[in-house]
Every structure is written in structure tokens, then in C-alpha cells.
């Protein structure tokens, strides 16, 4: 079957809105309702965060959501069980995102097999760098038709960007600034220069900008330079346990999408 990520980028070339959510947050059983509601609201793609005890690339918001999810009892076992029938309701691309160790403990091959059976389209494992991916993981990912989404940052050299572009299938995750997740105070001129520099490289893969995209303004700036953007911390902040979840998600989606429709 066709990889849904590739399919999405073939059909839609701009304003792709992707949302990151932490599995098992805010309540353990919210994983599927959150994904389903995001899809209903017309979100184009979802990153499902697999919580980890030591998320070094994440800021306070996602750190806290990881901790809450783990305290709620989330694990890869539980997650796979929760989402085993997700493809009955949801047909947008779904990506699993998380740190390497839990995946490594599950067993790389077993993990990829399971993810693929469920209908997951791609993986983002920030602490699995390019060389180790190519050496030890690429074949397994390919066997199970999973796109490996690699990151680039403002510090990544042009040569390395070309290598990452070559090794990528689906899209490239452009980290918007030198930072962990959840830092945002708008998008600076320096960041725009970086976006333009990458645009001018005419990479073969589409690009999605993430980290620090938090509202309509930052989303549309990002979309001016890439096919779309990912919102993570701002979405996590929008979820609370004391209100009706679908309403919170609808309000969030509308706050971002309003003028882009």
C-alpha cells in the first residue's frame, strides 16, 4: 500500500498543518480520541509522541506531558494496543515520534513490524543520527515501509543537508532554530534567512518546519517558506483535563486554520 506521507505531499503542496501530541496525555485513554478529533478538524498529519523519562531535546511543556503520560501508565505496549484499530477511523498520515531507548528495548524489528501492521507511516527518532540509521536501521525501516524523518537545524552544513535529503523519504523536519521544543517568541529575521537559504537549495524532499511554531502567525510565516509546519508544545498546552476534549481541540485547530481555509 502507498505510504500516506508521500501521498499527502503529492496532493497538497502548502499550508500542511501537522500536530504533535503525547500519547496517554492528558489522560491515559485520550490517545485515540485526540487523534480522531484532530483528523476530524482537518489536521493533515499527526506525530504521536511516545513518552520517555529523559527527553533531552524537549522543553518544559513536552517534558511535563511525557511525565504525566508515563505516570498515567503509558508504554509502547499500551500505545500499540490503544491504536491497533486506528485505521478504521483515521486515514491521514500518522508518525510515531520518540527517543530511541524505548524503541530499542521493544526491539527494532518487532517495533517496525507492529507499527507497520497498525498503519503507521513514518518514524521520528531524534537521537538516532543519520550514520547509525543508515548502518543499522535503514533496511528494517524500508522492509516495513516506514519513512524515517530526519531533522536539520540552522547549524546543519549544506553537505550534510544534501546527505539527509538523500537518505530521507517523505519529508525533512526543519528545526526552526537552535533550540529545544517549546521556545517561541515569534520568528526572527535570522530564522527567515535560514528558511530562505534552505528553500534555495531545492531539496528533493518537501520540508516541514517545527519547534517554536505556536500560533497562526508563526504557522503562516513557516508556511511561506516550506510545505507546512508542526505544532507541538502549543497544542499540548491547549489540552487540559477539566474540559471537553473535542471542544478544546476544535478551538485550537480553528485558531490556527481560520484564515488559511
Amino acid at each position, binding site marked *: 500500500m502507498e505510504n500516506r506521507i508521500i501521498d499527502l505531499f503529492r496532493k497538497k503542496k502548502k499550508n500542511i498543518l501537522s500536530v504533535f501530541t503525547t500519547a496517554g496525555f492528558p489522560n491515559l485513554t485520550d490517545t485515540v480520541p485526540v487523534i480522531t478529533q484532530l483528523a476530524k478538524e482537518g489536521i493533515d498529519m499527526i506525530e504521536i509522541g511516545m513518552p*520517555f*523519562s*529523559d*527527553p*533531552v*531535546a524537549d*522543553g518544559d511543556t513536552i*517534558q511535563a506531558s511525557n*511525565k504525566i503520560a*508515563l505516570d498515567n501508565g503509558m*508504554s*509502547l*505496549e499500551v500505545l500499540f494496543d490503544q491504536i491497533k484499530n486506528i485505521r478504521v477511523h483515521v486515514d491521514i498520515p500518522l508518525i510515531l515520534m520518540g*527517543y*530511541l*531507548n*524505548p*524503541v*530499542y*528495548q*521493544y526491539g527494532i524489528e518487532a517495533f517496525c513490524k507492529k507499527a507497520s501492521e497498525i498503519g503507521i507511516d513514518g518514524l521520528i527518532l*531524534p*537521537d*538516532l*543520527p*543519520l*550514520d*547509525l540509521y543508515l548502518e543499522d536501521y535503514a533496511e528494517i525501516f524500508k522492509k516495513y515501509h516506514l519513512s524515517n524523518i*530526519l*531533522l*536539520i*537545524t540552522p*547549524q*546543519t*552544513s549544506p553537505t*550534510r543537508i544534501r546527505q539527509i535529503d538523500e537518505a530521507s523519504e517523505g519529508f525533512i523536519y526543519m*528545526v526552526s532554530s*537552535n*533550540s*529545544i521544543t517549546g*521556545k517561541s517568541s515569534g520568528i526572527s529575521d535570522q530564522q527567515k534567512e535560514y528558511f530562505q537559504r534552505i528553500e534555495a537549495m531545492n531539496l528533493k524532499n518537501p520540508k516541514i518546519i517545527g519547534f517554536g511554531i505556536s500560533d497562526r502567525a508563526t504557522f503562516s510565516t513557516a508556511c511561506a517558506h516550506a510545505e507546512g509546519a508542526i505544532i507541538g508544545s502549543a497544542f499540548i498546552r491547549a489540552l487540559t483535563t477539566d474540559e471537553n476534549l473535542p471542544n478544546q481541540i476544535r478551538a485550537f485547530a480553528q485558531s490556527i486554520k481560520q484564515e488559511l481555509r
Partner: protein
Amino acid sequence: MYQVDEKGFYGQFGGAYIPEMLYPNVEELRQQYLKIIESESFKQEFDLLLKDYVGRPSPLYFASRLSHHYQTQIYLKREDLNHTGAHKINNTLGQIILAKRLGKKRIIAETGAGQHGVATATACALMGMPCIVYMGAVDIDRQKPNVERMRLLGAEVVPATSGSQTLKDATNEAMRHWINNPEDTHYIIGSVVGPHPFPDMVARFQSVISLEMKQQLLEKTGSEDPNYIIACVGGGSNAMGAFYHYLDRPQVNLIVAEAAGLGLKSGESAATTHLGKPGILHGSKTILMQTNDGQVVEPYSISAGLDYPGIGPVHAHLFETARADFNYITDKEAMIAGRLCSQLEGIIPAVESAHALAVLDQRKFESSDVVVINLSGRGDKDMRTYMNYNFDD
């Protein structure tokens, strides 16, 4: 055979499992570190500081009363006599000279017991570089004197309030800071942990310990080789320093003391090789205390410098190849051994180092055996722990 390979691995362990955000910094280090630290001018600057500023060589002291007590030949490698009171300064001076030569302007570090934080703050004061030290909130509380020393030295001490609020969390915070400040900042990691090339680099800076030991043993015993070298392992930098020049001499038995806290099965322990399995944390594959689901377990030890859920990848390799023998020492065994050393030798050891001393109670040595204990640090910082400990329990 025990050295790092070209790709940064020790057997299956090591590597650089880092997010792309850290790649340029780590890659710069990887490309530069050997060139810099093997240059003559680096060696001159480093050796001079080790001599005049740290006070090296540190003595190898024949502990006659301990020897009599245990009926064997015990030598203490006196890293506790170094400036700032532990082996940590060997590494921080090496790294800060390197950082300067890389053109870095700022230094960050993590610390557990505060010894590495103090040694980093000291090196920064010496070199006139701004310094931020991340320290678990729990450790800030139990290692107050070191916090005050760091502040007096001009460093900013930032509490890490996530997770167990100890060493691993301080390390997470330091890595996040490095991600946010990739251009002018060097991260002085405090042990033989982290992504390649840190473990190898730190091992090289600490290797002066075994270099001196060879010479000193030759003079005192007529042979460079002892029968045993015993060291505690948190991340494993003092142990690596003490083992370095003996790794390829199988006649020298290497013994590691891990912190077992309240006991291996108590759930309050930090004995990594006994409780862990291979996993990935802080940029390298190593042996890691974790749940079946791959979540890192919060370790416990009475000694803040040993309560880390992993060990350096080189030690994971020494464990897997059985080159070193890994022992576990409980809080109580360490405290008793620390008190004994104080009373028989007039040397109050750091609680970390007391774990190495406690191996003497666990294992039987021949009366002719030459046993070197790496006394990694002094106990001044631990006075409160010694005073409050209930030895009679």
C-alpha cells in the same frame, strides 16, 4: 582492544546517539580533539597546570595500618589531595584548555556530588570564562558546601528540577542548554559518559592517574604492575584514569565498586551492571538501569557522585568482556569502610571513594598482593552525611 574504535564504539557500546541539534558541536569536537590534545603546546600547558596548580603527581601512599588490618599490601592513590579535593580537576583543566583552543567563550557542566561542578567552576575562574553548572535540586540540598564553593568561584548554579532531581537530570538540563547555545559554548562533561568523543577524551585526561601509578609502583614495589586496582564507578572517570595504562595487562586485576544503595533488591540502588541492561542515554549506548519499557530508572545511592543510572560505555565493555570485575557496595558497607579509613589512616575519604575501600571487606587478598585503591576524593563535602549516618542500624 579496550580503546575506542574509529566509529566511537567500545565493542557494542558507545557511539554518538545525539539529536541533530548537537551534531555540529559534537562533530567539531570529534574532528579536533586528538589533534589538539596531542599537540606539544597543549601538553605543555596541561602538564604545567597539573603540576603547579593541581599539585600532581598525587602521592601513592602505602597505608600500613589498613594493610595490617586487611593482611595485604594496600596503596592509596591520593586523588583526594588534588586541588579541589578529587580527581575531577584533571578532566576539567584538560577540557577547558581544549575549549579555549576551539574558540569557545562559555562553559556549562552538570554535577552530582558537586565535585565536578567545583572543579569546573575552578577551571573557569582560572581561565576567566563564564560558567553555568546544572545540579539536581536534591543534590543541591545534600551537597551544600560545594554549592557555596561554586558560587564563591563565580559560577552560576542552576537547579535541575525534573525527574529524580539528581545527576541524570542535571545532565539532561546541560544538554538542553547546549542545544540552545550551540555556537560559543563548550559542555565540560564530568565523567567518561556522553556521546563519542567525550568518553575517550575524559579517559585521556584522567589517564595521568595510572601513568603516575606505574612509576610510583615501580619505585615502591619493584614492579609497575599491582595485583589489583580498585575504584568506584559513577560514570567511571576515576576508575578509567586508574585503569587506563593497565587495560592491556591482563595480569593486573581491575575491580569496580558500584553503589548498591540500600541493597540490590531494595529498589533503592545504583548498581548499574547488576541491575541494568544495554540501552541508550545521554548520547551513548551503554548499560542502563531501566524498566522493561525502556524508561530510565531513578537510581539511589548515599553518595551523590555515584547515583547515576548508567556507566561509561567503556565500562560496559569492560563488564561485557569480563576485563574488570564489578562489585556492588551498599551505603552501609561504604560508610563503615570510610569510617575505618578515617580512624586507621587519618584520611577521611569521599563517600564515593569509600565504596572502593569497602571492597576490602568483601574480597580476600593474599598477604603478598599489591592492592591499589584509587582514593578519588576527600570527605570534607560529606561531613554532614558521615555525621548523620546511623552506623548502628
